[in-house]
Every structure is written in structure tokens, then in C-alpha cells.
């Protein structure tokens, strides 16, 4: 009997291959757009994991995005300098010596490791501080939002060390590759795509493991998990750290595509926009998160060119409509009737075999949750679970 996931993975691979040939049929502007949005998709995957599976809403993913981007940007700022020279903004901020914590980023290995380690560590520390005191839910969302505000304020005010409001731009070569070279840009696109693919397959594997199942169970009933003898805190911390690491990688890749990283990309508003991408695509679907990110960002590029003042109305309405009407996002629309039809007619899977796919534990819980959330006046036993969602 064929493995139920094989088709899914093959399908995803096909799309990845099609995307891989994008440099040959997209104009270089559209390619650069696609590259940057694919980089953002990595962050969206992280949000889908921590929000869709872990039930933790973070309004501060911009912080981890920024930490990753700044780690690599510091290296790029230093790489072209002679010994004793300072990055331009330090000079006009009146600094005369490179601070020690900048000097370690002269080493490309440290910088690239920093892209993953720094945001992951920051995320883990924050998550531990909040969750070990059993603070959760809304408080966590609000604290992460305050963190986004504090982080961008700090970046802006410490101009001599961070480039301030201008951020970091005008970079040197990455490992000898000049970023403005079209060939390097193309290579960067493939690297981004590869990172996205790895992240996607890693998360798909992760949510299927026992670890993934416990995380899901914590989302749906944290106290019940405690009663069963598990300590949910390490699980939440690890999940949040993974989300942070993905945000960091995403930030570094985005910074390479955009050629700039500045506090405007890490603050409160961009952090919340990141949540919309995933909400639109469907928080409980990894592929949905990717589609949502691409859709919203291409939409933004298009609408904001055509009718700029409309953009805020559109994204505001999108928030309201998606969350109230289709809480599972676009991937929620990809409902069972469609899936059954595709499975039977196109992939020739017999209905019985397909039934095995649908009865995976994930879908079970998710479906139950959706039906209870949709009922107008939830009974007490449902409410208990929803309170934490």
C-alpha cells in the first residue's frame, strides 16, 4: 500500500521544482520580489508552528526576524573595511572604536551561526521567563508586542551601535560574492528556496513526531497534559525557539534580498502583519502559511502601487473577514469535499485509503476544535479548552 504522505510530498516537490526554474521565466524585478517573499515564508512557517500547533500567539516575531538580519548585516558591514576603519554610521555618530561585540561578527561563521543561535536563544529565554510562571495566552501576546516596541526603540536610540533609524545598508560582499551581481541574486533565490524547502519538510516531520503530538495536546488542553505527568514548559520553549530560529533565518535572507535592514521592519506593525499572512493562509497548515504569505505580499505590492490609500482598508478587512468567517484561512477552504475529489479523481486513491489520511489525529482534533468554535454558545466543556486557544 502506498504511503499516504507520498503524494503530498511529491506534489510539494513538483511545486518547488517549478519555483526553482523561476529565474528563467520571471523578470528580474519579479524574481527579486518572489525571492524576498519566499524568505518571509520561512518566518510564516515558524508562526504556523508556534501559533497553529503550539497555540502561542506571538506579536513580536519581528524581533527575532531582526536579530537574524542584524547578525548577518553586521558581518556584511564589516567585511569591506580595512583594519581600524569603522562602518560609516559609527563615524558620524562620533564613535572612534569598534565595540567588541561587533568585532566577533567579522568572522562569517560566527555571523551565520548567529543568524540562528541569537534569535533562537532570545526566543527561548523569553518563552521560559513567561511560561514557567504559567503566564500564557493573551499576556504572552501582549508581552511579545511590548518586546517588539522596546526592541525597535532600542535599535533606533542606540544609533552609534546599530545604525539607528537608518538601519544597516550598503553592504560589502558575502563570502566574496557581490550582492548586486545578478548571478549572485539568482543564486540567492535558490538558496532561499532551498532553505524554505528544508524548513517545510523539517516542520512536516516534526509535527508528526511524538513531540509534535504533545505540543498539539498542550495547545488543546495544557492542564490535562500536566495531569498526565508532562511538563509543558520545555515543549513550549523549544517550539518557540524553533519559531525564533526560523524567523532569524528568514530575516537574514530577506535582508540579503532587500539590501537593507532597519527598525521599520522589526517593530509592532510589521510583527502583526506577519500574523495576517499566516491567518490568511491558515494557521493550522504549513503549506497554507506559505500561500498566505505569498498572496498577501504580492497583493500588497500590487494594491499599494495601484491605489495606495486602499491598502490599509484591504488588509484591515482581510483581518476581520478571514478570522471571523474562515478562521482556518485559505487552507480551511481546501475542505474535505475538494480533497476527496482530488484524491479520487486525480491521484486515484480509493476512498477507503484516503479515509486513513483524514483520520490522522491532527485532523481529528482540528476538526473538533473548529466545530466547537463555530457553535454560537459553547458548552462549558468546550469553553474550557477554548479559553486557552
Amino acid at each position: 500500500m502506498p504511503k499516504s504522505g507520498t503524494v503530498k510530498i511529491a506534489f510539494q516537490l513538483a511545486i518547488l521544482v517549478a519555483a526553482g526554474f523561476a529565474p528563467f521565466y520571471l523578470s528580474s524585478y519579479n524574481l527579486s520580489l518572489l525571492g524576498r517573499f519566499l524568505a518571509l515564508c520561512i518566518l510564516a512557517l515558524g508562526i504556523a508552528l508556534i501559533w497553529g500547533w503550539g497555540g502561542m500567539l506571538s506579536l513580536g516575531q519581528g524581533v527575532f526576524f531582526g536579530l537574524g538580519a542584524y547578525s548577518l548585516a553586521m558581518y556584511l558591514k564589516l567585511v569591506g573595511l580595512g583594519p581600524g576603519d569603522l562602518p560609516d554610521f559609527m563615524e558620524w555618530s562620533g564613535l572612534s572604536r569598534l565595540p567588541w561585540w561587533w568585532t566577533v561578527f567579522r568572522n562569517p561563521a560566527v555571523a551565520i551561526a548567529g543568524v540562528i543561535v541569537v534569535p533562537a536563544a532570545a526566543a527561548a529565554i523569553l518563552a521560559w521567563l513567561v511560561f514557567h510562571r504559567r503566564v500564557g495566552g493573551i499576556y504572552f501576546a501582549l508581552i511579545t508586542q511590548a518586546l517588539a516596541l522596546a526592541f525597535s526603540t532600542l535599535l533606533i536610540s542606540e544609533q552609534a551601535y546599530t545604525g539607528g533609524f537608518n538601519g544597516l545598508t550598503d553592504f560589502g560582499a558575502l563570502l566574496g560574492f557581490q550582492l548586486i551581481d545578478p548571478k549572485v541574486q539568482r543564486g540567492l533565490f535558490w538558496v532561499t528556496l532551498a532553505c524554505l524547502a528544508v524548513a517545510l519538510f523539517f516542520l512536516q516531520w516534526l509535527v508528526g513526531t511524538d513531540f509534535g503530538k504533545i505540543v498539539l495536546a498542550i495547545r488543546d488542553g495544557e492542564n490535562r497534559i500536566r495531569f498526565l505527568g508532562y511538563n509543558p514548559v520545555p515543549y513550549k520553549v523549544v517550539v518557540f525557539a524553533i519559531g525564533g530560529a526560523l524567523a532569524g533565518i528568514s530575516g537574514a535572507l530577506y535582508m540579503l534580498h532587500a539590501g537593507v535592514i532597519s527598525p521599520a521592519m522589526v517593530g509592532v506593525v510589521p510583527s502583526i502583519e506577519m500574523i495576517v499572512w499566516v491567518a490568511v493562509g491558515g494557521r493550522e497548515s504549513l503549506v497554507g502559511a506559505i500561500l498566505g504569505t505569498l498572496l498577501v505580499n504580492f497583493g500588497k505590492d500590487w494594491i499599494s502601487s495601484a491605489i495606495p490609500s486602499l491598502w490599509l482598508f484591504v488588509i484591515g478587512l482581510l483581518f476581520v473577514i478571514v478570522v471571523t468567517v474562515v478562521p482556518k484561512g485559505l487552507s480551511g477552504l481546501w475542505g474535505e469535499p475538494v480533497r476527496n475529489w482530488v484524491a479520487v479523481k486525480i491521484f486515484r486513491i480509493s476512498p477507503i485509503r484516503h479515509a486513513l489520511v483524514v483520520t490522522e489525529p491532527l485532523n481529528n482534533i482540528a476538526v473538533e476544535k473548529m466545530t466547537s468554535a463555530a457553535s454560537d454558545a459553547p458548552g462549558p466543556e468546550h469553553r474550557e479548552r477554548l479559553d486557552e486557544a
Partner: protein
Amino acid sequence: MSFSSKVLVVRIKAICVLATILTIAVSTVDLRPVMAQGGGTVKVGVLQSLTGTMAISEVPVKDATIFAIDQVNAEGGVLGKKIEPVIEDGASDPAIFAQKAQKLIQEDKVVTVFGGWTSASRKAMLPVFERFHNLLWYPVQFEGNECSSNIMYSGAQPNQQILPALQWGFEKGYRKYFLLGSDYVFPRTANLILKKHIAHDGGQIVGEEYEPLGGTDFSSIITKIRLARPDVIFNTLNGDSNVSFFKQMAAAGLPPSKIPVMSFSIAEQEAKAMGTQLVTDSYAAWNYFESLNNPMNKKFLAAYHKKFPNSAMDDPMVHGYIDVLMWAAAVKKANSFDPNAVRKAATDLAWGNSVMGSIKFAPNQSLYQTAYVGKLQPDGQFSILWQSKQPLFPQPYDPQVFPGKNCVVH
């Protein structure tokens, strides 16, 4: 687990079909007809924040730029072609500025771009313009310390706005200076330069404070001002923070008539929005005031107010306006739209009587211009108290603070 080979083949076929459909679907997006540059028009980009926090300042500059383009078109265009502006929104986000600049150059094939307000947006766009060898006309006063051959800096350098204001202050007998700014690059760099010059000229800094962008509480800063008893406050606050600052100063019994305030980001536009009475009697330093008494300015204002009856005119808007005229003149002189030829032609031109007086581009692609100090009247206009003796040579690098740095473009 055994695969039946037939099922496998069917699946692979299906996947191939899907992949092909997808590829075609994606690629058709790009098959739009490429707009030819020929015919009767030439495209230029206008890139400002039409949404987000900076829209408040940048939308009026966009309007002034479009007004200038219409004016040039009404006079027959340039080199026989009408100018077609392509307007894009930078959304107050430097990464979007870079992205849209690339779009304008690559997709719309514009020959030049007018735009940018914050230094952050200019810095983000700079690599794009250098990479595609295009030209950006930047209309706002800024902190200097930058020198690119792909940017025409028409806004004031520090020595054309901040230092003249200091000179005026010393001439007025002010010795104790309090520096107050929003917490970002321009105020911090401007204050770095001011501190050196104040110390050098025998003045005294009695305080230096920064408010986060968008901050609204000044109670602690006002206490510090009260303690420091400055002769004058040099104010580089940005946008809305100015409203809070002046309101809370007035509430604390310290209106501009009691402690003089010299502002570097309050022009006619901002004064009008804040409520003129709040800032009446405060000072400002610019390279243009609406009240400038010259025939070109009168004619310009009459035409502009006919189109935008309620809009005030101010320094950045005028720079947005003259940038277009200077570009058109340079194109005519170069007899070409090529950015490289245009920028070289621009530095060879001079305008004896523009709306802001005598101007010309220095070899470093910044503008020679006159500095004015004005005092805000209750009617929202500045009365001009002081002006520099001649148009000032633009210095991107202050020789006292950054000795040995020089700006030479190739």
C-alpha cells in the same frame, strides 16, 4: 509497502501536468506587453510615502513634484516628449522604498526618480540607484555624511541650515543652548555637529535630550529644561512630537515667547497643522519661506494656490518642485535622458532667480543655496529676520567634526 507501477506512472503524469500548468500560469504573469519608451512620452518615477507615518510630510512633496511635471508638460515637455510620472508608495518603510525604486527602474523603465524624505529611505535606495546607474533627486534637508554620484542632493546640508541658525544665535547673543530632538539619525548627527561648533565658538551646551519617534510625553524633559535655563532651545523634533512638546511647554508656562525655540523641522505646513498660535514666535531656519519676496515666488504661489487652495507651501515642497525644473533644464542641455549625461549637465547649470533665490549645483551634486531664519507670525507665515550673505557652498562633511573627509563624485 508495494507500489503498483501503474499507479506510480499515473501519479507522475499527474504531477508533471500540474507542474506544467503552474509554470505556465506563473510565467503568463510576466507576459504583459513591454511599454516602449518611444512615442510621445518619457517616464519618470515619483516615490514618496503615501501611507504610514511619513505620509504626513511626503504627500505634499509628491503634490509639488506632480505640479512641476504638469508645468513642464504645459510648456511643451522636454526634448519633444511629455513627461509621464509613475507614482509609487514607499509606505514609510525603507525596504519598500528600495523595492519600489527597483520596480520603477526595471519595470517602468523610468529615466530618473524624484523622491525620498527620511535618510533611512534614501540610504536604502542608494545601492539600487548605483546598481542600475539611475539618478535620484532628493528634496529634503538632511545630516550630510553621504556622497553618491547617483543622487542629486537638493535639500540643505548641515552647513546650509543648522550652522547658519547657530551663527544667527551667536549674533543674537545666545550662549546657553539646549538641544532637543527625536531619537533618530538627523537630530543626533545635527547635534553632534552643533556641539562641536558651540564649544568651538565659546557657547555652552546645557542639555541634550531625545524623545522616541512618535513619543507624546515631555514632562520629564520640560523639568530638565526648567533646570537648565537655556537661552535658546534648538529643536530637531519630528512630526507629531512637536505638537506634544509645544502644547506641554505652553501648559507649563513656557511658550516660545519665554524660552526661544529654533526648530529645524517646522515649516509652514507643520505650523498650520499644529495650530499656528501654539508655535507663534518660534524660529525656524530653512532655504525657502513662503514669504520670500521675489517675483518668481509670487507667480509660483499664485499658480500653486489656484490648484491647491488650502495648501501651505514650504521648503521641502519647493525642493520637490525645483528638482523637476532643474532636471528638465539639464535634460535639454545634455540633449539626452541618460542619467549620467543629465547629472553632469546639471552641475554646469545655474539659476539666478529661482523661487528660492540664486541656486546652482556644486560639483558634489548638492545645491548652493541661501539660508534664511524666520520667526513665525500669527498668520502662519514666517517673517524673515536673517539671511546668509550669499548662497552657501554645500558641505556634506563638516570639516570640524569629520576632518579630512571630502565629497568628490565621479
